[in-house]
């Protein structure tokens, strides 16, 4: 399936883009991350959480095909 991935803050610095679409044939968020780690080698050093459909999910969650976002530490306020 086609997955839209958004990158923010220091994660977008690593990926050098704010979003992209990827063709994904796996099941879990962790598998999607493996693809991204492979593509962006610096990503492994970064601290981030994953949101799916605007809710934080664990890497064991299933990818449902909705929007995925990689969120670095929050710094609001």
């Amino acid at each position, binding site marked *: 399936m086609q997955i839209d991935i958004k990158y923010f*803050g220091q994660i977008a610095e690593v990926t050098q883009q704010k979003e992209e679409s990827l063709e994904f044939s796996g099941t879990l968020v962790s598998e999607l991350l493996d693809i991204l780690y492979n593509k962006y080698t610096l990503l492994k050093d970064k601290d981030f959480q994953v949101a799916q459909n*605007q809710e934080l999910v664990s890497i064991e969650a299933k990818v449902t095909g909705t*929007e995925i976002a990689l969120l670095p*530490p*929050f710094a*609001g*306020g």
Partner: protein
Amino acid sequence: MTEKKHKNVFQKGAISSEFIGNSIAKHQTKTSIGAHNIFLGQVRADVIDDKTVTAIEYTAYEDMANAKFHEIREAAFDKFELTCMHIYHSLGTVKAGEICLFVFVSSPRRKIVFKALEYIVEAIKADVPVFGKEIFEDESHQWKVNS
């Protein structure tokens, strides 16, 4: 894809003192209010490794952030007897000394506003996907992390 359906909390750039003053003035018709409590987050000119922060550049996952602000607002109205509540957060560049967060709660009674405001501010810091790039004088930067 979730539709953008929540109130937009974000403002471009710093939140001005006039804006805050006007916001206070608007509450003078609400005569059941006895106590207001206002939190303002201001950008600090922190010195890190001899370099001084001159500004923070804020970005956000805007749809999710507005949804989270909405959740925080609903939870606060459930928990506390509030007459009104307003939250504004900056996006883009906010210079040191300028205000980037404005949270305003009002209630008939003072004890409630203290509890409510702290609850809301802590929830914003913990749960809302806002990102801050601290810009130094020499245009280098580092990424801010809430503590």
